[in-house]
């Protein structure tokens, strides 16, 4: 039990914070209902994938500054391919774009391994490259998305045996998110590959000496990151119905949520659940600020302060939980 709290305490705390925010929301806007929750889930979708993409590489001891640019590129690619194409063609577009994310992500990893340039520089360079590529694909926002894809995030999923009022709280967007993340993450987390990703992030030298193929693992981590970013890009196209070549605010948001979610930026620690909950928290804060009609100039202050305060609070309780101070 105590180990659970040591390992999952942060996530549990975040979850409590999320519930607390839901209560607040309901108090601010008594009419807040399942439909609004569906909106929240849709707003969360691109952020959640961006954060998943960031989480994987951060756990592996790196950082990916190209997440948002990758989303932009995959988004415009999907949108321009589906433009004027038949509905069925999208069945081909989706796997194509996902494969593209995977390959470009792997390219990030390969460049890091081969050039031995630090992750932050390689992915910064790739940020420009991917942005440039996105501009070549679509010079201005445009393109289209298949109707069935757009429908895939609208509405709710009827779950047999559940009453209608409960179904209403299961938005498709949320189900899509959970399914996509689980398909990749759960088998990974349990596998030797997953352990290897944690290992190279925790201590690369020790990992190498334990026989972990460090280079290959790093490349795979970046490839997975690319895959998640491509999912994020697709979700952008799906929700807006177009592709936009200018990256959205997903880079800094993803880093912030990763840290808020209890993943150490040095690598090796944390999981996917925390950052995803952190994304929900951040989006819900945004909703509350809008519901309260707070002066928009003040919202920046509040968002910044919340981010800092939560992490500070985390640091504070970690300090408190070691009353004797650091052992030598």
């Amino acid at each position, binding site marked *: 039990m105590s180990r659970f709290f040591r390992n999952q305490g942060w996530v549990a705390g975040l979850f409590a914070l999320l519930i607390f925010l839901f209560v607040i929301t309901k108090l601010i806007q008594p009419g807040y209902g399942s439909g609004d929750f569906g*909106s929240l889930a849709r707003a969360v979708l691109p952020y959640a994938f961006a954060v998943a993409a960031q989480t994987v590489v951060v756990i592996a001891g790196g950082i990916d500054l190209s997440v948002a640019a990758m989303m932009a590129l995959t988004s415009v690619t999907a949108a321009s391919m589906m433009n004027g194409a038949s509905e069925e063609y999208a069945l081909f577009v989706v796997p194509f774009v996902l494969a593209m994310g995977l390959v470009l992500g792997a390219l990030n990893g390969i460049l890091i391994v081969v050039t031995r340039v630090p992750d932050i520089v390689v992915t910064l360079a790739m940020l420009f490259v991917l942005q440039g590529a996105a501009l070549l694909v679509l010079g201005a*926002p445009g393109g289209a998305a298949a109707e069935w894809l757009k429908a895939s995030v609208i509405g709710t999923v009827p779950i047999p045996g559940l009453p209608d009022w409960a179904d209403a709280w299961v938005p498709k967007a949320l189900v899509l998110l959970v399914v996509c993340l689980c398909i990749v993450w759960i088998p990974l987390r349990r596998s030797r590959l997953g352990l290897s990703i944690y290992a190279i992030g925790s201590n690369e030298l020790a990992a190498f000496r334990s026989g972990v193929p460090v280079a290959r693992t790093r490349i795979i981590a970046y490839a997975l990151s690319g895959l998640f970013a491509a999912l994020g890009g697709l979700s952008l196209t799906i929700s*807006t119905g177009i592709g936009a070549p200018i990256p959205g605010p997903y880079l800094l948001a993803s880093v912030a949520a990763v840290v808020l979610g209890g993943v150490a930026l040095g690598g090796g620690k944390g999981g996917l659940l925390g950052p995803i909950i952190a994304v929900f928290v951040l989006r819900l804060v945004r909703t509350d600020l809008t519901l309260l009609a707070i002066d928009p100039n003040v919202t920046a202050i509040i968002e910044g302060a919340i981010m800092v305060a939560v992490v500070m609070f985390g640091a504070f309780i970690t300090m408190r939980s070691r009353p004797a101070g650091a052992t030598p």
Partner: protein
Amino acid sequence: AGKYTIGISNTVQGNGWREEMICAMKAQALASGEVAKLNIAHRNTDAAGQLEDIRNLISAKVDAIVVNPADPAGITAGLEEATKAGIVVVAVDQAVTEPSAYIISNNQEQYAYLGAKWLFQQMGGKGEVFYMRGAAGASADSDRDKGFKKALAEFPDVKVAQEVFTGWQQDQAKQQILSFLATGTPINGIWTSGIDNVIVDALVEQQAPMVPVVGADNAGFVGQLNTVKGLVGAAVTNPGSIGGAGVTLALQILDGKKPAQQTVLVEPQLWENATNEGKAKLKSAADPSLSPEWPVSISIPDWTTYTKDQIVACKGPGE
């Protein structure tokens, strides 16, 4: 106090034009006396983020939403949901594709066409032009590009010496013009997408030959057109006060006075300092007390009713 709550969604923060737009919205809401509360979502984000904001405004049960769209087509779903929820939707500055929305917009294509055409005429219909665009991939930029290209097609002897994207950033634009000047390539005119006063600054600083410059009606640039010796140029209006007009339109609709058409275009004007008549216009338009990034056209006749003090105070109802 008024009876309506109006939601506002804007996706660019920290640039003078957008700040003026927000202030115009606030001032107009206050001046109209019909608005109880403004609910403003004003931050840097993309179309998906704007969808989020619009949906949050729907959750907040506003009566109308005035939106400066990040993209004409990208927020269709949100606007449709808003209309379904009985909310009046007005898009300002740019058009949107959602048919149920009302649009009151500056004509970006015309903006570029007007300025470029004047410039090419000043250049005597021939020569090299330095083409300083906005942000690559932004829809307003590509609309303006269409207008520019249209004008270019009418002047076959005018060539684009160099095309750069300023990202609508002052510092980038200045660095670009300085780099370009250093190449020594002769040019006969400069067209800018509204990042204009730093360009004139650079020409003066480098003691480079003055060539005609086209920019927007930003206070700084209008001032330069009046004062900088040897500068020939034109400011094309692109009023940020369109935001106030959007609020007016939304209130009219809420009051049951629907406009004849779904779309109202505010046509740009061109103020140049090559003729006496133009100079007079510029003189009367100049407003040195405004922040140099703010457009001087702080009101739109027939559409806004606030005073200059009100927009400069930048206070909405209840503030």
